[in-house]
């Protein structure tokens, strides 16, 4: 286990290092001039030169990368070129929004998928199964932004049950939850459709096992067998997919935050790339990468919890 953790930590650091190099290189190769983006079409040459100097854009590439790395190691991610405030603060004020959305999306995905997936497996080759499979096929096919617009039209514009977008913050929990409902559904419906199908097929596979038949034969109810014997043994492939889906949900917030004008990290990264705001883009991409790597790491740990047989192999 100790060796496993060590190997994972080294991998984590190497991944982040590689990401930082790639982002830095891409942002520098990409045509664009932050000073021109900030000062606009009427800017004079001397004003542009002064701003480039202020932003430190005239230093050699390696010098800039090195100072970024050394500062980042001390927790200083620099000052945003376009917002003119420390990047860490910018991220901190938007993190709750994105975390709220990703977590509620994850809960929605898992709960809906497990219930539907198990229900479909229990009703294998019956109407319920066909129905759930048809709806989930539809769910996979619908693009998230289109679904988002449809939800807004129906529930915000016509029925007026929910707000069409925006996020009031957690100081008013009821309003915050209401604001999260439509974005959550739009974000998570695709993922939960995928996961429901995985849950179904994984559960079906387990249901063919001898010990399930034995459990039924020894008098346990169908329900008890499904939730206590089938589901735990069907979890390994489900958890693998959930891990991948968490990453997809976090990155999916970029689209959803734009459609529902939510002030989260997705909007920030979108805007920062357009503004060629290197320090902000760099820090955000690193953060997204760290989240993905961490999610994978947690999945690996969960395998061991779910299936103790894997411990020997780890």
């Amino acid at each position: 286990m100790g060796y496993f953790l060590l190997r994972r930590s080294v991998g984590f650091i190497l991944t982040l290092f590689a990401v930082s190099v790639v982002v830095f290189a891409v942002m520098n190769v990409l045509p664009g001039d932050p000073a021109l983006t900030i000062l606009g079409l009427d800017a004079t040459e001397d004003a542009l030169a002064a701003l480039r100097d202020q932003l430190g854009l005239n230093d050699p590439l390696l010098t800039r990368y090195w100072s970024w790395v050394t500062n980042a190691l001390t927790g200083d991610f620099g000052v945003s070129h376009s917002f003119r405030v420390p990047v860490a603060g910018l991220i901190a004020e938007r993190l709750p929004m994105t975390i709220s959305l990703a977590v509620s999306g994850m809960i929605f995905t898992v709960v809906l998928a497990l219930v539907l997936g198990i229900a479909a497996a229990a009703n294998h080759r019956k109407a319920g199964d066909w129905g759930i499979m048809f709806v989930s096929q539809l769910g996979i096919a619908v693009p998230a932004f289109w679904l988002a617009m449809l939800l807004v039209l129906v529930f915000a514009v016509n029925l007026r049950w929910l707000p069409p977008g925006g996020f009031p913050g957690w100081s008013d929990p009821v309003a915050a939850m209401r604001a999260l409902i439509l974005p959550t559904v739009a974000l998570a419906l695709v993922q939960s459709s995928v996961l429901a199908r995985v849950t179904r097929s994984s559960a079906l596979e387990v249901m063919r096992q001898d010990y399930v038949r034995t459990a039924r034969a020894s008098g346990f109810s169908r329900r008890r067998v499904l939730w206590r014997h089938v589901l735990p043994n069907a979890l390994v492939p489900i958890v693998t997919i959930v891990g991948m889906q968490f990453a997809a949900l976090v990155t999916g917030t970029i689209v959803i935050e734009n459609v529902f004008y939510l002030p989260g990290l997705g909007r920030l990264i979108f805007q920062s790339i357009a503004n060629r705001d290197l320090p902000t883009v760099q820090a955000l991409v690193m953060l997204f990468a760290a989240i993905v790597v961490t999610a994978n790491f947690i999945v690996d740990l969960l395998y061991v919890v779910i299936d103790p047989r894997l411990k020997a192999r780890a």
Partner: protein
Amino acid sequence: MTTRSLSAIAALGMALFAAAAQAETKLVIGLQQEPTSLDPTSDATASIDGMLTQNVYESLTTVAPTGDVLPQLAESWTVSDNGLTYTFKLAQGVKYHDGTDFDSADVLFAFNRAMAEGSTNPSKGYFKPIASVEAPDAQTVVITLKKKDAFFLFNMAQGDASIVAEESVDGNATTPIGTGPFKYDSWTRGDRLTLVKNPDWRGASGVQLDKVEFRFIADPAAAAAAIMSDEIDAYPGFGAPEMLPQFEADPRFSVNVGSTEGEVILAMNNSKPPFDNIEVRRAVSTAIDREEIIEGAMYGVAVPIGSFYPPHGSAYVDLTGAYPHDAAKAKAMFEAAGVAGTTMTLRVPPFAYATRSAEIIQAELAEAGIDAKVENVEWGFWLDEVYKKKNYDMTIIAHTSPNDMGNFARGPDYFYGYNDPKMTALWDSISTEADDAKRAELLKEGQKYLSDQAVHGFLFQLPQISIIKTNVKGFWQSSPVLFQPLAGITVE
């Protein structure tokens, strides 16, 4: 019960009554563009001016919707006979929102900062004609110009010329401090910005709004949903003309289509073949059909232009008939110039007016035998490759600044690649002509010359589409500037 507590209860009751009688008037305005900084003197983002200029910040002068210059922090001014010396009398008793006093020293500071060597003012060019700024006393500022500048007072009304204070200037990017009718209240980046009424403003009694909230909604479909569900009261810069019918049909809203200062052009790179050849440029002007472009790209909501001057301007001449659309004639012209059948790139920035126009222009050029390759590029890419490096054949862009015919006098380094001593001399006489009538004549001459030279394909004037609740009055329908004063807006 003592008299004192009785009177306290009475006072409380009256206060409650007063509060109920005049409930807070709040206005929610939707904006397409989200700002990154709140300092108009160091960032060109248009929404900074849209929210803060002449609302939180004030300048020496301001501008009426007609384009006339009006007094603001300068109560009055005189201009010397040679047109070079401006003496401004400043408003008295004005205070910044942080409580510090406003006087001529602030004007001196703001101008020196904008003119300084390391200045990063986005419109530093406004200050180029200034020779000196002096403050003989606390209420007087004397500005001397090197050469006459017909647009000086107009330019001094813009956000770039906001009179910022030395005490608060460093914080303006996040907590703006000005002298205007509204005070900055709060900003949730990416979501909303709130202003509250400044009760100490010199004209505060005439201001009805107590609170103004700007909501940033970039996506037009999301904006439409927010307007429809009564989340916002006004959306003054709506970018999706195709969605207007649903608002026009709804009695809750009034839909106004005004004009901006934005001339949309099909820019041609005059510095390199084939567009260094005037016959090729004229052939392009003949190949394009403005009516079709406006119908297809703007759903009919725009006014065609035949040169580089807004149709609502007082010196406008209609030159839209200079090159009547004729695909066969354009084809013959391209053939005569030896460019028929060649491929050209049309690099388009990510704005709906540009990307939609590009598709139609591509088809029109194809009809005239030119294969235009449309490349949709992102804004940062456009700025660097097209604007800075002139690495393009054709592009589509709106020039939103007022009085910008001077673009054609910016020399060979400007992205037009257009260098014509005649135009440079003409602009020089336009920008130094103080007499309005004479200047109008010169501006007409300039429009005709640019049309004759077919420097670019002149397409249409960018409309200002606003969707506003019918009970909200006072929004400018057309604007000669980037800002929108809120002091005059009322809610019935």
